[in-house]
């Protein structure tokens, strides 16, 4: 790696003066220990704002736990569900969280395999998002149970009644898929964390030192260890892709395997997966913008990262529109009576406000993200990506709740209104997610330092003759 020598002539067109090269050089200016400090420093900053945030989030979580206890004690009747809307806000939020979780894998695994270097500062934040989103999602199969104290019957264990769970049920597939995904992405998160845990161990003391020492698993940074790590990450990257694709497909099949009108659609699996990617990537962008600001990680999370992330969101969004349209046109064209009724409800009936909210909140960002200005201005990107998630949550709500309000026998139609219990519990998972993330940001280095350093190693400026030529090296 060459450091720019102070004697470099400052010509125009000189690499030194070109912004993109300037940026790289800027990073190359920093020594390793400076980077470490820069990443670790924000972790120690727990000012008043931080504690107020934790208190508020904690209060919401506690209130949500109370609401959950209330729900368990008094019964599912304290929620707003009824016949025929047997699933409502809980399942909506469940699907939403599972969707959010897809971004992590997208960034870490898929982009790793595609050798997209801009992923480097983002991977940990993304994987953490996946893990926490899955944790939140994993609460819902428990929350929505009428007899949650018997939840363990869904776990296949040998018992004296020889009763096994029914693996034909999509809920069991959910269980397996989410569990696998959670374990997988947690391991993936953890594996990629080990070198940084070692780094943190070496730079801290007190309780942190003790914690990091345990988590570092005695990492010494030897060649062999790095080699094994890269092998493991390589395998994970490939292995987690099918899980990533299947999880949301399976969740979508919770709906698609029934004969409920508008659920019984073959397009659900890819539609949900792409929706998840769209939603997750947007959430990731939102979170990164917020974290970047609050932890002052501006030099690590730069406009080029958001630019690329924004482009990914754009592509995912366009794909989402395609799948939505593919699903919609066959329903609309097929003209099945109840489906027609549901479409009518959505387009010009009582559900219309939600439908138009969904469409505008999902489509407008796509248009906006075409513009680089939007993608690279943090505030604008934040607004755009939050809008996407508003739209995607509404989309899930329309699918789950909207469809259940109608069915094949009009005598049995119904409607739904959420209660404080449901809202509290949903708020609990949002607050819980935020709380976990906030605590995470103060315990775990947010930016994967070793990956950044690795990335730096890949791209260097080498002098060939009088030219400073950017070069890239294969690391793996």
């Amino acid at each position: 790696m060459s450091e720019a020598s102070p004697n470099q002539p400052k010509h125009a067109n000189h690499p030194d003066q070109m912004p993109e090269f300037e940026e790289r050089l800027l990073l190359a200016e920093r020594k390793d220990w400076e980077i470490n400090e820069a990443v670790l420093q924000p972790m120690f900053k727990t000012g008043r704002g931080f504690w107020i945030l934790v208190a508020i989030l904690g209060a919401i979580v506690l209130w949500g736990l109370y609401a959950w206890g209330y729900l368990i004690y008094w019964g599912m009747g304290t929620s707003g569900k009824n016949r025929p809307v047997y699933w409502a806000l809980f399942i909506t939020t469940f699907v939403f969280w599972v969707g959010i979780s897809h971004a992590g894998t997208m960034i870490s695994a898929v982009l790793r395999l595609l050798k997209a270097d801009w992923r480097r500062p983002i991977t940990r934040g993304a994987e953490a998002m996946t893990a926490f989103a899955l944790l939140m999602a994993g609460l819902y199969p428990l929350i929505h149970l009428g007899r949650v104290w018997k939840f363990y019957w869904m776990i296949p264990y040998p018992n004296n009644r020889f009763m096994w769970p029914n693996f034909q049920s999509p809920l069991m597939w959910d269980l397996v898929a989410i569990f696998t995904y959670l374990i997988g992405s947690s391991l993936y998160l953890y594996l990629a964390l080990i070198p940084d845990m070692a780094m943190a161990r070496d730079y801290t003391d007190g309780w942190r030192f003790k914690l990091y020492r345990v988590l570092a698993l005695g990492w010494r940074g030897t060649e062999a260890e790095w080699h094994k790590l890269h092998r493991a990450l390589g395998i994970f990257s490939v292995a987690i892709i099918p899980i990533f694709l299947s999880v949301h497909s399976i969740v979508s099949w919770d709906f698609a395997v029934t004969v409920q009108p508008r659920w019984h659609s073959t397009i659900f699996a890819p539609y949900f997966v792409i929706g998840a990617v769209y939603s997750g990537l947007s959430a990731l962008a939102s979170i990164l913008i917020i974290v970047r600001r609050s932890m002052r990680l501006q030099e690590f999370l730069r406009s080029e990262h958001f630019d690329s992330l924004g482009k990914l969101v754009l592509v995912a969004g366009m794909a989402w529109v395609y799948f939505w349209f593919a699903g919609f046109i066959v329903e609309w064209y097929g003209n099945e009576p109840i489906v027609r009724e549901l479409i009518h409800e959505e387009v010009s009936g009582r559900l219309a406000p939600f439908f138009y909210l969904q469409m505008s909140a999902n489509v407008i960002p796509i248009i906006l993200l075409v513009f680089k200005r939007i993608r690279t201005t943090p505030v604008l990107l934040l607004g755009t990506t939050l809008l996407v998630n508003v739209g995607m949550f509404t989309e899930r709500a329309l699918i789950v709740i909207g469809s259940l309000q109608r069915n094949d026998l009009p005598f049995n139609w119904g409607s739904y209104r959420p209660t404080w219990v449901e809202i509290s519990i949903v708020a609990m998972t949002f607050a819980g997610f935020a709380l976990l993330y906030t605590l995470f940001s103060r315990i775990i280095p947010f930016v994967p330092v070793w990956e950044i350093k690795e990335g730096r190693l890949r791209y260097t400026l080498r002098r060939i003759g009088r030219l400073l030529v950017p070069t890239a090296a294969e690391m793996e």
Partner: protein
Amino acid sequence: MAKDANQSVEGSIRWALVVDLDRCTGCQACVVACHAENNMQIVGEKEAAYGRWTHWIIIHRYWEGEYPNVKARFMPVMCQQCTEAPCEPVCPVFATYHNEEGLNAQIYNRCIGTRFCGNACPYKVRVYNWFRPEFPEPLAEQLNPDVSIRTRGIIEKCTFCIQRIRRTEIDARAEGRSPADGEIQPACVQTCPTSALLFGDLNDPDSRVSQLAHSHRSFRLLPELGTDPGVIYLKGGEVNV
């Protein structure tokens, strides 16, 4: 997966209910008889208004025409005991399954309340216990000991009064015979004043339900869904006076 119970295996039974819409007067005797037989909870006005009643059989009422040429028609709907039941595969814990007599059985103490089956049923005949049942004393004295009481969080539905089926089969077996056609009567069938409801073994070619199943008036609900229900409706008649 639901066994293909309508394959005629020697000696296998397929219970079926025939609902003669020409006789049904919508009197709700079946509704109350079902409550009395099966220990259902009463939910009160507020919960009933929100669609949380627990009737296992309800009588749909359909208006036809405009004043003054108005007609109303009744259609009792209970669990259709579908052979290809959409509710059976989706239960994660096998709380609902197809038994060897063609019934869609519900095991209350196995149900953990995911309500997936409630969504999967296209007839929406499955009802849920949203709260704990309350039987202010001494109403609890009336409870039928043959039927378990379901607490909150459990899905329930019409069982064709399986407790009566079993009891009669056991008693008949003790006498060394099998139940005669018409001997087993679910509560609704027994009380229906117009005899609009009839119960029997569809696999027995001599039973009345078998013969009525071939009536030109017979139809099933939502046949296009392929559920193969065990409830056969006989179309109401019409006379132009």
